[in-house]
């Protein structure tokens, strides 16, 4: 395959699983996802009283016969889903200790999900965020969109500081219709600002999913000897004895993870903490499974 982050066998295995929106979407065409509007699907939504101007063809005559009152029978409207992949391409996404770079893991997730979304007739878009560059591919349902997304993903190189927070605010502002916003980042930014951005998305009624990508070494901080640590974003360095600071490092990391998790829960975002040594296929499988509607619903 042309792209090393796309595995055809994995796509075949995952192809049968649909990506469902957890809330109603406002698409431009009919699709498989619920819409906030009443429409012409076969699924009954509710009765409401007839008001002047309603199409008399939608009157429920059987209800009129029973109650001698005019009721309009309304049905759910189904529409398509618009998914935005927001990928952090700051220098820290290039980190890898033992496993593959974080950005590569993000590419795999985004590419596979994009394929699944477009394949099921929904629209997919991509937003690459860096400190100064904010590359955006608006979501469309066209088959050629997948190539566009894959090309951009392949060309994306992690560099500079993160522009994630600004990118999320931009997406929240620009995207009028409800969408599924899938964020893939290490979230190494100001947690308060990140919380604001997530709340902004939520305010605009977007369905948010966060893939928090970390390297196992970053979590465990398991080093044997002194190291000079060089910041991947601003190149500052510090020499440290890991044995001396490991406890405090882990505490700080745990505190950060708790903050991020709390922020995501507050905005009812779908939060996934992922270490890059995990199987991306399993992660996607779990992600899709969790989003399937519960029994009784469509």
């Amino acid at each position, binding site marked *: 395959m042309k792209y090393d982050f796309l595995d055809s066998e994995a796509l075949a295995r995952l192809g049968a699983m649909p990506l469902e929106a957890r809330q109603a979407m406002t698409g431009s065409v009919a699709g498989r996802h619920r819409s906030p509007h009443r429409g012409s699907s076969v699924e009954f939504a509710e009765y409401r009283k007839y008001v002047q101007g309603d199409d008399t063809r939608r009157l429920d005559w059987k209800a009129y016969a029973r109650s001698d009152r005019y009721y309009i029978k309304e049905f759910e409207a189904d529409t398509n889903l618009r998914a935005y992949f927001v990928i952090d391409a700051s220098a820290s996404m290039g980190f890898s200790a033992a496993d593959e770079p974080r950005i590569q893991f993000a590419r795999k997730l985004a590419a596979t999900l994009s394929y699944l979304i477009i394949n099921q007739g929904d629209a997919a878009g991509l937003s690459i965020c860096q400190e100064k560059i904010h590359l955006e591919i608006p979501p469309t349902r066209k088959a050629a969109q997948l190539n566009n997304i894959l090309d951009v993903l392949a060309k994306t190189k992690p560099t500079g500081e993160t522009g994630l927070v600004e990118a999320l605010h931009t997406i929240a502002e620009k995207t009028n219709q409800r969408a599924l916003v899938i964020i893939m980042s290490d979230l190494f930014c100001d947690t308060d600002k990140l919380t604001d951005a997530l709340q902004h998305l939520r305010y605009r009624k977007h369905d948010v999913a966060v893939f928090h990508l970390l390297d196992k070494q970053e979590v465990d901080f398991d080093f044997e000897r002194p*190291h000079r640590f060089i910041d991947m974003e601003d190149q500052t360095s*510090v020499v440290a*004895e890991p044995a*001396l600071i*490991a406890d*405090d490092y882990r*505490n700080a*990391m*745990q505190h950060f993870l708790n903050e991020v998790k709390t922020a995501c829960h507050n905005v009812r975002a779908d939060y996934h903490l992922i270490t890059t040594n995990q199987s991306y296929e399993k992660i996607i499988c779990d992600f899709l499974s969790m989003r399937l509607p519960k029994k009784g619903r469509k």
Partner: protein
Amino acid sequence: MPITFLQQSLLWGLFALSIPIIIHLLNRKRFRTIQWAAMDFLLKATRESRGKKKLKYILILTARALAIAALIFAIARPLAGGFLSWGGAQIDTVILILDRSPSMEQIDDNENISKRLTAIKSVQSSLKSLNNPKLILIDSASATAQSIPSPDALNELSATLATDTKASIPTLISIAIDYITDNALGRTEIWLASDLQKSNWSPDDGRWDAARAGLVDLPQKTTLRIISMASAITDNVATRILSATRLENELSLEIEIIRSDTNTTASIPITYSINGSRSSETVNFDGQNYQYRKNLSLGDKQGEGYGYITTPTDANPRDNVSFFAYGDDLPAKTYLISEDGESKAWLSLASAPPGLNHNECITLSPPLADQINWAQATLIIWQAALPTGSVAKQIIDYLEDGGALLIFPPNGESETSFMGIQWQDLRTSARGQYFVIDDWNRSDGPLRNGNEGVGIPASKLKALKRRVIDGELTTLATWDDDQPFLTRKIVGDGTIIFATSLPNYAWSNLADADVLLPVIQRMIRLGDLRFSSAFSAIAGSSSTQLTDGEIRSRIDQYLDSKSSNAPYEAGVWRLGDRLVATNRPASEDEWLVLDQNSLNVLLEGTQFSLFEETKGSESLVKEIWKVLLITMLVFLITEAMLCLQPKAGDPKLKT
């Protein structure tokens, strides 16, 4: 507690203490570089970890260094116990002075062996710890130095066996000093194993000055180390025969029992063995000492005999026996040299009173004094002008040999002098008044109280006349004007008693026998010791040594003796034609010990150290490498615990 090392050169290994520090510093220099994303957390952790983490790391380094130090100390084979000072392990020669006196046979409560064997065991163990330096033994009995091939040989030598001889510590130290001076011994130490018994150490002995000076003046620095076995003496009873006197078909033993415990009434079974026949009785008494007289029937046995008395086994079995021997029955011959008169009759009667067939009194006038059979004389009573010339010389020889002489004043004036003593003026009491005895020695001399504590009624004595005596004499009884009635002079092994009045109605009522009879009979008993003493001796003394042609053989059945140790053991011996009962010296039953202060005074200016016997101590020095290895282990465990990081769980599980 001073510590010394058998392998001091290995202490250079202490430089290895720097290894963990050097490794730490090198590690700090040899860091790896890594690109890192989560920099904020790293900086925060670095800020927070200063202080307590550094302290923890310093503790880890310290634990590592101390573990190495403990290991180095352990392989350097440290010795502890306070016996040796720094560098004490580098000894070329040890001169061991071993106290073999009977008091060293007291059983050590901890080891259940005698103090002597405990000391030997400790010395053996210590010498092995010190890599067996050359060993020279000076034992208290033979007082000669001999080289010992190995510490183990101490168990096999007769020179380390128990004896009944006295130990003269200052003499033994002087012998050690002479040996060091005469031989090139290298670095030498004198180890003195003793129970610090005061009578053996003789702190007032003039030889201590020479011993002190000798120790100080030795060419090389020599330390005197005293292995003290001076534990308290408890549960011990010693028995001693003070005299054994044959009176016709009876043997009169004067016995002393000494015990260590005085809180309760003693009830001590005594076994008498005489010529193979045994009898026993129980003696009850209070206090520490008890003296009594025991008469043993000899039956029809003629000639010499022997025996011993014993008490049951106690803390010191060596002092539970006392031996005696006796010779033919000889009459107690008293030679009375007297001027004619009433005094002569009374003195003769008091010397051989009716009923005492054993006593015989031979009266001679002063000019015939040279007819005295000096060899057979038990007592000489001299009531005449003081002897002069050849008779005086013969009397002095008789006294030197242990004779007894009782001198009364002459009837008339006398200007002769005997051994610097002269009779002075005759004094007469005031009309209607008497000289009376005012004070007398109730514990010593012829007027002492009897064994049962009954006193002599000396206060009944009244005198009209008396003579003053002039010379260096010990007063035993005084008149009421503080002038002496009885005085004493010791000459060699003999005794002279001077009485200053006469048993004459014109002089005093001395003839009433309240005073005269006990005085003369006690003097006869004293003189009789001269004959019985030929059959007794102190173990190890010159009279127990063999003369030409004599062979030593033990004839009592109390114990067997090793021939090489026999001269120093108590027992009944046949030495050629002689029969001698040997016993430990009386001073061995004085259980006073020197305290630390007395020792400091005695050895002032010398380099000495005192090692007190401790419970369960087998060696004077102990290797403590095991302790140090355990210490090292503790430091390593401490280091490991400090290094153990509380493993943080996978953060993912906590999300």
